């Protein structure tokens, strides 16, 4: 029950991030904090596996393993969305670059072809 609430909340948060500006400074800071938290959780989970189990029971998840699986799925969605936006930004820059090259070369080429003074 509790885990369902948590997972739905995470999904909602993800959607909100998706709709709002992904590249804003706050979002970037949030992403870094989330990453720190994730690393910390990993360290604890490795050192104290029983704590994970305990936490899982607290939020109505059967086993610690299941909880780790949920966390993994959530992290995966997050990474996918992040990668998607990053690729989009990359594509925009790549387009600008290709366009600049195309226009520069074409100006020269067509000036030669038609003998235009520029």
């Amino acid at each position, binding site marked *: 029950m509790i885990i369902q609430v948590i997972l739905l909340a995470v999904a909602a948060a993800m959607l909100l991030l998706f709709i709002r500006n992904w590249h804003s400074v706050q979002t970037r800071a949030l992403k870094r904090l989330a990453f720190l938290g994730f690393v910390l959780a990993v360290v604890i989970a490795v050192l104290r596996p029983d704590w994970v189990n305990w936490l899982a029971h607290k939020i109505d998840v059967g086993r610690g393993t299941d909880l780790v699986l949920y966390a993994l799925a959530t992290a995966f969605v997050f990474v996918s969305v992040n990668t998607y936006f990053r690729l989009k930004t990359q594509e925009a820059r790549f387009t600008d670059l290709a*366009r600049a*090259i195309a*226009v520069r070369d074409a100006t020269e080429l067509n000036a030669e*072809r038609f003998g*235009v003074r520029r």
Partner: protein
Amino acid sequence: MQTAEAPGTTGTSEFDDVWVVIPVYNEASVIAGVVEDLLPTFPNVVCVDDGSRDDSADRIFHTGAHLVTHPVNLGQGAALQTGLEYALLQDGSQYFVTFDADGQHRVEDAAELVCAVKCGDADVALGSRFLSGAEDVPWIKRTLLKAVAALSPAARRLQLTDAHNGLRVLNRAAASQLKITMNGMAHASEIVDYLARSELAVTEIPVTVLYTDYSKAKGQSLINGVNILFDLSLRSRRSS
């Protein structure tokens, strides 16, 4: 001062300040014909070869059209934007026509659109297949295109009947403000959206689209509409 009179055309024409922008991707078999049809009327034509794998670039090179070559394939929207930016750089360019490479548009329709912008008070003229009868448009395409026009808030605001026609004319103000960011096929909706948000006066002119077997084979598959919708729904989120 006019630039770049294409070889073979003489003197000045009433369309000296008009630039026709054609995005080209693998159209080697028809592109030269399309350009040759245009040149007697429109002396300034720029073809943007979007990284074609056939010899489109070579065919264009031997016509009187300006040739701009994308070093890699970027998509039709990107090619249009490149062509517009190139045309905007040319001396004396005032009006900008977007024209499909597959020969589905008629030159006289383009001329009529230019006149609507030049002589009328519109900043932008869009071609519409549906303003006056549309017997030639395949029915499934007709239904879909009309649905898009009816469902799109931007198209509704502008009272457009055809939101995805490749034939458009923009004056300098409209063309220089336009920044197409949708590299792929979603640019048509993006342009309509831009027009709806702007203060520009937009008019729609009936045109005839020639559905040849060639253009039908090359045309948009309907399933690609899903891709277009997806791209569009995310666009506004990225740009801010």
